[in-house]
C-alpha cells in the first residue's frame, strides 16, 4: 500500500508567518521621573536663565534703644543657564515594504520610534546628571575597592547630606497596615541606579522590598525597594562607568535626588512630535515614505545640593 506523505505531496506554501509579533525589550526609563518639567518660551532666544537667591542671614541680636539703623544686608543670587538642543531621527521606508510584507511594518516601526524618543530623553537626563552632579564615593564596604560596594552607612551619609541641605522629599511615607510581612515606609528621596544593584541593595541593613510595602498603589514599576529615606528605581540603562574604580572595576552611579533638584526643559511650541511624511512628497514616483520624531530639550541641574551621585562598585 502506498501512503501519500508530505514527501510526495508538499504543502503549496511551506511556512506560516505568525502575525503576533514578538515582544521587544523596553527598559525602564527612570531619570525623568524625578525631573521637574519646564518650558522655554518660544521666541525667547537660545538660552533660558533661572535664578536662585541665596538665603539672607538671620538677625537674632536686638536693635537696642540707640535709634541708629543697622546697615542693610546685601542679597546675592546664582544664575543657572541652559541652552536648548534639538534632536530627531527617522526611517525612510520604501512603498514595496508596506505593500508586500505580511506584518504591519509602519505600525511596528512607529512604536519602536516612540520608545527611541523616550529612551533618548532618558539618556540625555542621565548623561547630564553624570556630567555635572556632585558625587560621593561609597566607603563603607569591604570589597577592597574604591569606591566600595554600597552599604547602609553610605546610604545614611547621602540621606544625612540631603537632609542637611534641606532637600525636600519626593514621596510621603506609607503608613503601616495590619498585613503579614509588611513594613511602614518612610517619606523618601528617589535613588536611580542600575539593575546590577539587585542583591547589593537587598543585603543592606533596613532594606524593604517593594512587595513588602503596606500599600502597592504608590509604587512605581521600576521600583525595587527602599532603604531609610531612599526609594530605589532600577533600570538596565542606568549609569555604569567602565573601569573607573581603584581596581578597574565598573562603577555604578546612583543618582539620589530630592524634589526640584533637576529639570527637563522643553521648547515651547516644539513638543516631542511623531512625523509621517507620505511617499507623495518624496519623489516624482512616490517611492518612499518617512516616519520619524523630533523634539527639543535640555536637562539642567537646578539645585546641586539636592542631587547627589552616589558611586559604588559591586561586592
Amino acid at each position: 500500500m502506498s501512503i501519500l506523505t508530505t514527501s510526495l505531496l508538499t504543502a503549496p506554501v511551506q511556512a506560516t508567518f505568525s502575525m503576533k509579533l514578538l515582544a521587544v525589550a523596553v527598559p525602564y526609563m527612570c531619570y525623568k521621573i524625578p525631573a521637574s518639567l519646564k518650558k522655554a518660551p518660544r521666541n525667547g532666544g537660545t538660552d533660558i536663565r533661572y535664578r536662585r537667591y541665596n538665603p539672607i542671614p538671620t538677625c537674632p541680636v536686638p536693635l537696642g534703644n540707640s535709634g541708629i539703623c543697622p546697615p542693610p544686608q546685601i542679597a546675592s543670587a546664582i544664575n543657572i543657564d541652559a541652552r536648548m538642543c534639538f534632536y530627531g531621527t527617522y526611517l525612510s521606508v520604501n512603498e514595496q515594504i508596506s505593500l508586500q510584507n505580511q506584518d504591519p511594518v509602519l505600525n511596528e516601526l512607529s512604536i519602536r520610534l516612540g520608545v527611541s524618543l523616550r529612551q533618548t530623553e532618558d539618556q540625555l537626563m542621565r548623561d547630564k546628571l553624570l556630567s555635572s552632579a556632585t558625587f560621593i564615593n561609597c566607603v563603607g564596604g569591604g570589597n577592597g575597592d574604591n569606591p566600595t560596594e554600597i552599604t547602609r552607612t553610605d546610604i545614611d551619609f547621602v540621606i544625612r547630606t540631603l537632609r542637611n541641605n534641606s532637600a525636600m522629599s519626593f514621596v510621603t511615607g506609607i503608613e503601616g497596615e495590619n498585613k503579614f510581612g509588611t513594613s511602614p515606609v518612610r517619606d523618601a528621596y528617589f535613588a536611580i541606579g542600575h539593575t546590577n544593584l539587585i542583591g547589593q541593595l537587598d543585603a543592606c541593613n533596613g532594606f524593604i522590598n517593594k512587595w513588602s510595602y503596606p500599600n502597592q498603589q504608590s509604587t512605581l514599576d521600576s521600583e525595587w525597594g527602599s532603604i531609610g529615606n531612599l526609594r530605589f528605581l532600577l533600570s538596565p540603562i542606568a549609569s555604569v562607568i567602565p573601569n573607573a574604580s581603584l581596581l578597574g572595576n565598573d562603577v555604578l552611579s546612583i543618582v539620589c535626588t530630592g524634589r526640584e533638584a533637576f529639570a527637563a526643559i522643553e521648547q515651547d511650541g516644539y513638543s516631542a512630535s511623531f512625523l509621517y511624511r507620505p511617499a507623495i512628497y518624496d519623489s516624482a514616483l512616490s517611492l518612499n515614505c518617512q516616519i520619524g520624531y523630533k523634539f527639543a530639550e535640555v536637562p539642567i541641574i537646578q539645585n546641586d545640593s539636592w542631587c547627589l551621585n552616589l558611586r559604588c562598585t559591586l561586592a
Partner: protein
Amino acid sequence: MSSPINAQLNGSFTAAAVPIPVFIPLPCGYTQIKIYNDTGIAAGGAGVNAIEGKATFPSHTCISYTGVPMVPAINNVNGVTFVADSGDQTPGAAVAMGGAGITAASPAVVTSASTAGAGDIIRVYGTTGMLQVAGWDFTVSVVNAGVTQTIANLPAAGFAAPATAGFVRIIPFVPRFYPVTRRITCMTLGVQTVIGLNVTHSYTVGQKVRVTVPAGWGCTQINGMLGTITAVGTAVSTCLNTITVDIDSSTFTAFAFPASAIAALGTGVPEVAPVGSAAVVPYGNVFDDASRNVSQTGVIVDSTNLLIANNVYSWVAYKGTTI
C-alpha cells in the same frame, strides 16, 4: 527631489602651528571625506596633498596622497576616524604600565605604551602603590610616544611613593554635557583659593562652583563652599589647569592627598562641581555656564605625518543612500 542621494558638504580649516588632531563636525550619516592641502598644493605639492577617509575604514585609517605625481598609500596608524557620537565615554583598551608606573614627582609621569596624545584623557587604575589616584582620569600634557605620558595636572612630589604597576585606558571624549564636575589635584590657599583639577575644566571666569573636600584630604573647612571663579590658569606647581575662586582659605589647613594605604580602604573624592554663574556685573549677560549638549558627529583627522603646520586644508564630505 527632496531626498538628495549625494548631499555634499564643504569646509576648510587651518592646521595649528604645532599640528594637533582636528575635529570636523558633520551631520550624521556622512560616510566619506576628502581633504586637500590647499597650501601645500599651491606650493608644489611635495608633502601630503590629499587625504581620503571612509566610515567603513578602521579608526585612524586613511588613504594619503603624497608628492608629485601623487602616490597613494594606506595609512592605518594616523588617519581619519568617523565619530558617530563624541559623547561616547567607553574607555579604550587596557595598556599595562611599564616598570616606572607613575612617578611621585611634579609633574607625575606615567610609563606605558599607551597611544594617548597630548590633550587626551587617560584613566589610571589597578596601580600598585599610589592608590590615591587609582580610578582617576587625567589630561595628558606631554607625550613621549609609546613610552611615557606626562600629567602636569598631577603634582605628585608630595606622594610617599610611586606607583610601580597599573593600567591605562584612553577616554575618547569629554562627557556629553558641559559643564563637567572635575576632581581636585592641588590647591594654593590664600585670600583667594587656587584649585588645580585633573582634567581640562573649560570653566570660565564668573562661573560658580561648589567645592567638596571630604575627610582625609585636609582643607575640609572649604567643604561645601560656593565660590565664584575670578581667574583661570594660575599655576599651582606644574598644574596650569586651575581655577581661582573668591574663597578666603587663609586659615584653612593645607590640601593633601591621603596616604595610599588609606585610599585602599575607600575614600571620598575632592571635587569641584559647576552650579551656575554669579549674578553680578560683569557676568550678568554671560551664558558661559549654560548647561548644554556638546556631543557631535563628525570626523577626527589625526595630525602626525598628515597635517602640516599652518597649512590651509579644504574638505568635501559625502553621504549616499545605501541600497
